[in-house]
């Protein structure tokens, strides 16, 4: 979350500077500057995701060296999931919390001619974004780990695409539906990347207990001597 915030800070800084250097009155220019700012923000978010991956890799090695059996207690996949989830949560919260706070107060939605579905579409978009960030985190880390750079490019491209689709608001059929399709596809992709398959789902649903193939030795009488 901290890394996402820093990326947002830098992106806002860039946007702020560009706005101040430009003509304030020109609405079209401000609009395009906003789009530019959003694109920069997306690229910075992905860059910081990569930076976070590097940091976690280092921490993973550190944890592995000091642990008892040479493996770190958290796998890289779990870290990928957590990282994606936290990016998603902070991104979603920043997008929606002010809207939520305003939705308590008295008011009428869309009284000036905007869409009356503002709140519900914001909610759905935020949900899609949170899920997408989680999936992107998993795919991204896996791609960096296996050095599949086309996957990386695809993740960044889909993020840009999603962000771009939101520029079509308030034509919600043009933005919401494709975004949800993208969410489903990315979810499936992340599931497969994390090692899931149809087989796994079946096994999970049937709740079968796995036989423990390890042998455990009990010595209830004496604590073994350790020299």
């Amino acid at each position, binding site marked *: *979350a*901290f890394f996402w*915030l820093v990326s*947002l*800070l830098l*992106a*806002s*800084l860039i*946007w*702020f500077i560009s706005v101040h250097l430009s003509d304030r009155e020109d609405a079209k220019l401000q609009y395009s500057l*906003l*789009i530019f*700012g*959003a694109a920069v*923000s*997306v690229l910075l*978010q992905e860059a910081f995701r990569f930076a976070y991956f590097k940091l976690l890799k280092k921490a993973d090695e*550190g944890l592995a060296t*000091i*642990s008892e059996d040479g493996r770190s207690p958290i796998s890289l996949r779990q870290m990928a999931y957590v990282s994606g989830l936290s990016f998603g949560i*902070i*991104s979603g*919260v*920043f*997008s929606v*919390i*002010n*809207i939520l*706070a305003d939705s308590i107060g008295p008011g009428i939605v869309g009284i000036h001619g905007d869409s009356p579905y*503002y709140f519900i*579409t*914001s909610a759905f*978009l*935020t949900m899609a*974004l949170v899920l997408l960030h989680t999936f992107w985190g998993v795919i991204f880390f896996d791609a960096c780990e296996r050095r599949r750079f086309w996957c990386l490019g695809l993740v960044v491209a889909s993020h840009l695409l*999603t*962000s771009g689709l*939101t*520029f079509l*608001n*308030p034509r919600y059929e043009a933005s919401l539906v494709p975004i949800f399709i993208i969410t489903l596809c990315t979810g499936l992709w992340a599931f497969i990347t994390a090692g899931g398959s149809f087989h796994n789902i079946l096994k999970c649903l049937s709740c079968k207990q796995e036989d423990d193939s390890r042998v455990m030795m009990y010595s209830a009488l004496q604590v073994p001597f350790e020299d």
Partner: protein
Amino acid sequence: MTELSAHLPQFQHGQLTENFPDNHLSNTNDNSERRRHDTSDRRRNDNPESETNGQPQNNIQQVVEQDEEEDEELTLKYGAKHVIMLFVPVTLCMVVVVATIKSVSFYTRKDGQLIYTPFTEETETVGQRALNSILNAAIMISVIIVMTILLVVLYKYRCYKVIHGWLIISSLLLLFFFSFIYLGEVFKTYNVAMDYITVALMIWNFGVVGMICIHWKGPLRLQQAYLIMISALMALVFIKYLPEWTAWLILAVISVYDLIAVLCPKGPLRMLVETAQERNETLFPALIYSSTMIWLVNMAEEDPEAQRKASKTSTYDKQAPANQTQNEGAEADDGGFSQEWQQQRDNRIGPIESTPESRAAVQALPSNSQTSEDPEERGVKLGLGDFIFYSVLVGKASATASGDWNTTLACFVAILIGLCLTLLLLAIFKKALPALPISITFGLVFYFATDNLVQPFMDQLAFHQFYI
């Protein structure tokens, strides 16, 4: 030292360093104590291996070295757990403060200022306002410095009664008076009808149980809850009575002061830590938040002292070997080893006499200590002053920011990350560290950046319903 002023008196927030209770409390003075996490004592006494009393001497050196390495690993391994143990109370305190600020309007209303910040900020020019706020901050900081030095002097000259009295009066004021005002304002906000008798009963119970829990014994969770509540109350008072620019300046200067006071060799807090370490004393209660139950250290000493100290208290470090708590009713000076234990030991290792001389020899060994501490139970301590200033930052952010919730959340994340980094440094350096500088710096940077840069950007995006 106990004069009451016309305005609400200020309280101190305890600063902590591990084993040294460093609280300046006075009714009229505002002290900020430094908080430090001091694990040095624990490190010294830590021995995750089982005790080696009675084993041949040649094993002991190897065990000592092995212990030190394993100490390092265990520190890092269990460090994450301690971070979480501190995240929860800090988050709770901030949540209480933010919730109160958002709902009870009393704490955002300007009702005058304290005597510690005499210069007003309602001036005509920006320059005048800046000057006034600098003067206010300077006065406040000098009050804090004077109080800190006074506390160190009192501690050095062993005026424990004065310090205890100071602490007790402080917590009395906080627990009774401030919570009464808080309760009154909450009732006003929600328009709840209440009679004085019920209020008197509630406040009396709340206060008395609080005093007992904090200064004497009580369930750990209850003590932690009370400490969080008084930190939140104190933070709310600060948020109400400190004007804008003064508050930010004070936050910045306090973190610098914290850094200096804890790390410089001549710093008052560092001297306090060292004095307490020399005397091998424990911390004063009521100014430090501790995440685990603490048992007093009991080494196998002469009988009268062992009997006196072999009691469980509700604070501080957990270092107590199990066999020493069986000390009650043991005979003359068997070193705290009960009969069954001696028999067991004889059966296992062969008859070895535990005489005072042998015990003294073992005690003289460096880190091969008599205390076996379960590493999982080792807690971390954080001073209440840290809680208070973190909450002041987040509370001010939620009260006055134009970005509202975005700014509050950004400051919250920044403070937690700062706390994380501080704990990491603590695990590496293993000595008392100031907890304020990193968190407050991050918090301030994020507050001003989010409020001025991110807020317009997010606002525009939300207006057009763009998502990034």
